[in-house]
């Protein structure tokens, strides 16, 4: 092992502690329970609901879970690259959990296939796929509106099943390449006998600099395909930014939760300091603010414009009982984390911060529910109880739990501390009263 100069403060064990196995088992059990629940709910909904949309609801719930897990995996990749660019000690702390998140990408790609097959190929989710060829006759039959017909027709060069597959898979391939490089270099860096700070930093910066830009661009296209095009008439230029902030909004809390959970035992115990936790808390606060800023800015612009092309999207999500969901979305997404994170003390106390982090992750899924469900004709401006809607708990719950299982497995495979970093010395050097 290199870096003798600061390895003196390093704990002897750098691998993950045993508690991760416990977490993994719990997640697996919860995932199984949720899966069984999802299937039962679908069957019940098919029997009892009017109209019977049990399996469709399962698919919608699946989409919600998939988009959430996608954000946790590749949002983690984006945050990892940002951390390489910005530097800072918090980056060193969260690096390994983030890398573990990125390595879950095969699971995420697997989750994508049902969406692509059933949602797009069989047109169960996307009406542009369903009425791709016969939009004109669908319009005549009154299955779609004039606006939808126009949009489906106009957007055919982009919104077709082939492009859906090609674009998604190409993006996955690019991301996979990035994940591989980031992880491989990270291991190599730790194995480097010399610090070679400038060399490694340059290498990571070169990869990440362009990577962040590329990710931002590709993410926008992907969320258009997966979520935005559920309503083919809808468009909003800030959509990509909202996801770009929404993903770290869930990723960073998860990383903090992981670290807090691990901080009771070595090796994280000796590197995890309240200063970095405070910094990450501030970063969470910044994300909370950015999130509401984008969301409110878009709402204000569309509310003020009040044009028939745009405002229905919000009306679908506010009227008919959806206002409750929207208000709760604001409360979970902004009010609770904002008011709690204002406090300096809260950011420095593990238990309280982990509560806020859990709320933030929950808010992420809640928001996806609000974004996705009102796209469908039976739910727009009409929030009502059906057995099927409970799939939004069961399906994402199952997917998230299975994702966690894989994430914990990945976390275990690498040492939890990146050793070759100049910041490590500062973190370990307790001599400093203040950093």
């Amino acid at each position: 092992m290199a870096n003798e100069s600061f390895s003196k403060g390093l704990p002897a064990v750098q691998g993950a502690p045993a508690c991760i196995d416990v977490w993994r088992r719990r997640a697996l059990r919860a995932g199984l329970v949720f899966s069984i629940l999802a299937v039962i709910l679908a069957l019940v909904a098919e029997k009892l609901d009017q109209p019977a949309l049990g399996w469709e609801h399962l698919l919608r719930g699946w989409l919600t879970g998939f988009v959430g897990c996608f954000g946790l995996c590749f949002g983690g990749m984006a945050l990892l690259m940002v951390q390489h660019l910005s530097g800072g000690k918090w980056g060193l702390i969260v690096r390994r959990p983030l890398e573990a998140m990125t390595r879950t990408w095969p699971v995420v790609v697997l989750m994508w296939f049902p969406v692509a097959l059933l949602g797009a190929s069989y047109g169960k989710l996307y009406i542009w796929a369903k009425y791709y060829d016969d939009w004109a006759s669908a319009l005549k039959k009154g299955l779609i509106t004039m606006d939808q017909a126009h949009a489906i027709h106009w957007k055919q060069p982009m919104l077709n099943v082939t492009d859906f597959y090609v674009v998604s898979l190409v993006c996955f391939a690019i991301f996979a390449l990035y994940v591989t490089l980031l992880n491989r270099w990270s291991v190599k860096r730790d194995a480097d006998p010399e610090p070679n700070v400038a060399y490694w930093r340059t290498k990571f910066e070169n990869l990440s600099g362009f990577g962040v830009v590329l990710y931002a661009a590709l993410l926008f296209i992907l969320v258009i395909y997966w979520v935005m095009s559920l309503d083919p008439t809808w468009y909003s230029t800030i959509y990509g930014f909202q996801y770009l902030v929404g993903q770290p909004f869930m990723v960073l809390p998860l990383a903090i939760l992981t670290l807090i959970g691990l901080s009771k035992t070595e090796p994280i115990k000796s590197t995890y300091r309240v200063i970095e936790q405070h910094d990450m808390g501030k970063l969470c606060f910044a994300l909370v603010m950015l999130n509401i800023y984008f969301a409110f800015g878009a709402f204000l612009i569309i509310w003020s414009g009040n044009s028939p092309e745009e405002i229905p999207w919000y009306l679908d999500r506010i009227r008919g009982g959806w206002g409750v969901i929207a208000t709760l979305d604001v409360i979970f997404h902004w009010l609770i984390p904002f008011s709690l994170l204002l406090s300096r003390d809260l950011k420095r106390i593990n238990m309280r911060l982990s509560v806020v982090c859990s709320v933030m992750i929950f808010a992420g899924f809640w928001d996806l529910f609000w974004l996705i469900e009102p796209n469908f004709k039976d739910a727009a401006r009409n929030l009502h109880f059906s057995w099927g809607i409970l799939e939004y708990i069961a399906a994402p719950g199952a997917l998230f739990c299975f994702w966690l299982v894989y994430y914990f497995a990945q976390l275990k495979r690498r040492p939890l501390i990146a050793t070759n970093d100049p910041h490590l010395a500062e973190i370990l050097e307790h001599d400093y009263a203040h950093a």
Partner: protein
Amino acid sequence: MATKDAPVNNPMVDPVTGEYRVIAPGHSFKSVTEEVSRIVLTSHTPLGWWFGFMVAGTVVGILTICVTWLFLKGVGIWAVTIPVAWGFAIVEFVWWIGIGHAGTLISAILLLFKQGWRNSINRFAEAMTIFAVICAAMFPVLHLGRPWLGYWLFPYPNTMNYWPQFRSPLMWDVFAVSTYGTISVVFWYIGMIPDLGTLRDRSQTKVGQFFYGLLAVGWRGSVRHWVRYETSSLLLAGLATPLVLSVHSVISLDFSVALMPGWHTTIFPPYFVAGAIYSGFAMVLTLAIPIRKFYHLEDLITIRHIDNCNKVMLATGLIVAYGYSTEVFMAWYSASHWEYFMMWNRMFGPMGWSYWTLITCNIALPQLLWSRKLRKNVGFTFLMALIINTGMYFERFVIVVTSLTRDYLPSSWGTYRATKWDYGTFFGTLGLFTFLFFLFIRFLPMIPMSELRMMLPQARVREKAEPIPEAGD
């Protein structure tokens, strides 16, 4: 494995990280203090300063003439008319406000993120903010038609029983810009109080002692005061950060709340903010590079600062590019013919030249900043800063003018050609900005001395203190 780092002999480069230092090695509390305060306290005003001051003063004269004529004749002397009712005035308003943003960003956001390199440049970046806000705020007021009635915009019990209409983004502007101006001044002044104390104590003249003393309000460096001062600075920074985001967002709402094609788009707030920071950093560099050279401040404003500013410019420039691409993409994806035509008109319409200038200056050329070498080249940076400033001017021009010339209704289409008064006012504000800046660098400390002291290695309190030396040692 052998070391991959090329050995460096430059003392400005940190041998461990291979990065340029934020402050040159070998400085003491006294030397940094003197380095900064000598510029202000010297009785000898450099000839170059006088020259620049005179030139700027002359341009202010032009501004005075333009504004006086505007007061006498009305806004008709500008080229604003239907359909382009928001001509240069609003272009420049947005441009100047945007420039101001870098100042707040540097002092506030970087303070929150504990970026030490901000300390050398934050003071004059803040001054830049204030002067830019002054220049910016002039335009909407002059644009009112009857500028002397500008106070009507505020809610006060007037004889008209009339109150502002709070659903208008123009009203939001009033509060955003006035708050921004006020908080910027307060932040700037509060940050300067300890330095004013230093100047008071170091000044050799009675007049200097009196005035700096007055401004320093009796600052004596008590640690109790310092604790409150630090809290207050952090809080102000914490407040200025969302403020700076909101101000340009509100300005973007002036456009995006309207239903004009090319204006009504949800990405405007963040994209305007990014553009603002982009142009602001360009202006910081435009100012910092000559000042650094002229006053020999290479020790305090190092290549690290320039490199970091360049990185920020690259990042914000990419966000702006993202915004442009989104607009182009959405012009198609929206399936709206008006949006589609708007984009076509921007690119290939009669004012297409402005769009391509903007793309060249704002997107194409700044890609050179990917190069590490160029980012550390002072001359290139200066040139790039000027290019970006130009590009951002054209961005506002494209947004304001090309959208307005082509409305929904072909019968209301028109064109725009600025008059000499438009140009005069614009160059006049450049003069005013420079003029105020010259006054600032002559009479106030442009680099925060107390924060420089804090950055020095000897400023750190060691826990395991050395034993007390014997008396007389």
